[in-house]
């Protein structure tokens, strides 16, 4: 082996992450899912045939995603929405939620549908990172880890590491995953729709606890204001361009672990660029289901997710919590 070849291999190793470095010219003014009169729009798209037995029907997942994107952004074709959100050459992180294992995690069918659509607008596969807290969480949910190579990268913060600067936002002081800080230009938050035994619900806002190094410190007081504060951390706030909540299978009690007795097929997706509006809508879906199956409301259960309202207050301004400022488009 020649010295140059040797050096190439040696330097490729430690700097692999460098291959997915940020773009020199990230997208300016990406599209927002807002109405003409400034309301936050949340698309709720459902398809009773999205399941084929125990598995999701990939084709129908893709079609549902397209419909949801059209509805959320008020465009004629889904491509217009994707083009308005991401550009060729950008690196995009897809933050999934895989804590609860195979049955109650962001589904791969949805993730690969997102990847396909990103590729269509010129984001190359090697500039897409599917990430979560830990490699083992991703593996438990059925994802195959991939740290390098020409395809999509899949790894946890334990591979990427944390950026060595403490981000302080309100009551939160955290290190943040290198995926969010160093590697990506844009983030897509792809949570699930689930009850949470401490903070009430875990949807879009709470999903970013998987991006910080010390989420265990911030579950006190039903996560209020900590969940809202964590979402103020600049790389998370500024880079999140889209939220696609996987609600094909949702859970109304017993979370965060998977509890089959409380899971139900909602057969849907929630899409928005406003995490607070999306969480507000998602929370209502969970409350409605709790009522339907005879469970007390989350308030009665002592874990009303008040952090969602906090995220909308004057100190946070992360989105809309007031129903009069939210437009839900059901498909």
């Amino acid at each position, binding site marked *: 082996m020649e010295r140059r070849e040797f050096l190439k291999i040696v330097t490729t190793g430690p700097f692999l992450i460098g291959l997915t470095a940020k773009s020199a010219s990230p997208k300016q003014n990406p599209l927002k899912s807002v109405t003409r009169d400034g309301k936050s729009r949340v698309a709720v798209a459902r398809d009773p045939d999205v399941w084929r037995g125990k598995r999701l029907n990939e084709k129908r997942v893709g079609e549902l995603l397209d419909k949801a994107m059209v509805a959320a952004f008020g465009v004629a074709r889904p491509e217009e929405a994707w083009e308005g959100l991401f550009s060729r050459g950008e690196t995009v992180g897809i933050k999934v939620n895989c804590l*609860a*294992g195979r049955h109650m995690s962001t589904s791969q069918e949805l993730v690969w549908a997102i990847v396909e659509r990103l590729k269509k607008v010129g984001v190359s596969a090697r500039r897409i990172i599917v990430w979560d807290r830990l490699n083992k969480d991703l593996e438990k949910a059925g994802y195959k880890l991939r740290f390098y190579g020409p395809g999509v990268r899949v790894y946890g913060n*334990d591979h990427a590491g944390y950026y060595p600067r403490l981000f302080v936002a309100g009551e939160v*002081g955290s290190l943040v995953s290198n995926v969010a800080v160093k590697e990506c230009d844009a983030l897509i938050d792809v949570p699930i729709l689930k009850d949470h035994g401490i903070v009430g619900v875990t949807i879009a806002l709470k999903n970013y606890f998987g991006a910080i*190094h*010390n989420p*265990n*410190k911030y579950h006190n007081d039903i996560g209020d204001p900590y969940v809202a504060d964590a979402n103020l951390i600049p790389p998370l706030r500024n880079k999140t361009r889209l939220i696609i909540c996987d609600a094909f299978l949702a859970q109304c009690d*017993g979370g*965060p672990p998977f509890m089959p007795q409380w899971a139900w097929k909602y057969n849907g997706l929630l899409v928005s660029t406003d995490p607070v509006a999306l969480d507000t809508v998602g929370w209502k879906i969970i409350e409605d289901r709790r009522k339907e199956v005879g469970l007390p409301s989350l308030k009665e259960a002592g874990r009303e997710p008040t952090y969602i309202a906090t995220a909308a207050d004057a100190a946070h301004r992360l989105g809309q919590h007031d129903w009069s400022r939210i437009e839900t488009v059901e498909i």
Partner: protein
Amino acid sequence: MKPKMDWSRREFLGGSCAMCALAAMPAVPSSLWLSPPRRVKGLHLVEARHYEKLQNRKIRCKLCPRECVIDDQERGYCGVRENRGGTYYTLVHSRPVTYHVDPIEKKPLFHFLPGTVAFSIATVGCNVECKFCQNWQISQVRPEQVEAFDMPPDMVAEYAKQSGSPTIAYTYTEPVIFQEYVYDCAVAGKKKGVRSVMISNGFIQKDPMDELCTVLDAVKIDLKAFTERFYKELVAGELKPVLDTLKLLVKRGMWTEIVYLMIPTKNDSKSEIREMCKWIVGELGPDVPVHFTRFYPQYRLRNLPPTPVSTLRAAREIALEEGIHFAYVGNVPGDPGENTYCPNCHTVLIRRVGFEILENNLVNGRCPKCHTEIPGVWS
């Protein structure tokens, strides 16, 4: 093992902990040392000793006053204990992230084997979050985020012995959250004639503390303030359980010292100091030493200046006025308030500069002049 953050381990330990510790490393003949401990990755699970099982695979941790109720696959507030299928595990037993040989004065313990060294270890994790933490890079992280050493209790005891340390110190982070490991190391140490001291925030439940009292030889408690408000806003903890721990330690006859880090405008009012000193004298007695130490801006509390030396001296004066026999000024090397004086005749018993002992005039634990017995563990 690949560090999980963008800094090396030594940088990671930077700050007062690592720098002081490394600088203070005594000259130990290398031939005395065992081979260095193995660096390990991956989580190491040992079942926790203080918890109860609840319905739906949940558990309630009974180690510290938080009593975290934890779902399957989740961790408690401290981040170093995990519920796996309804069984609760500590992830840090036998997994220290740092080990050093420090002067015992660095802990600080001024009435416990002065002039000796302590083999000092810490795992990651803490059950509070002080906004002024000096060692947040190890106290506020989770086990998978920092490389650790494989150091079972017997090895800790052996290292202590080989390094000439009569004591193992559980320190730097918060030993409460590695309680099982502290206990097992202390037992292993006892078998080799090595004592154990714990440097703690005292935020622990009675049973686990009682258990530790059977194997520890001294405890230093960081009393961070004397108001619940301070504990809530700057510590994310509570004062009352810490006071209960102090009472328990004294009741058990444990050698106990208190450190009070004085933070300008936050816990340095004369009235608060006086109230605290009255409580100490009334509930613990006048012989528990109190160290008023200097704050330096750290972690999330960087907008305040270091404590003026005059504030520390004033606090020491208040303590003496209130009847505390041994009040010290800390983190001000060379200050006369670092010395131990006889409470009866005021003779200098131990003269210190920083962590160094310049003179130790005690004779069999007594004042050489008036023969007053000086409380402490002197031999």
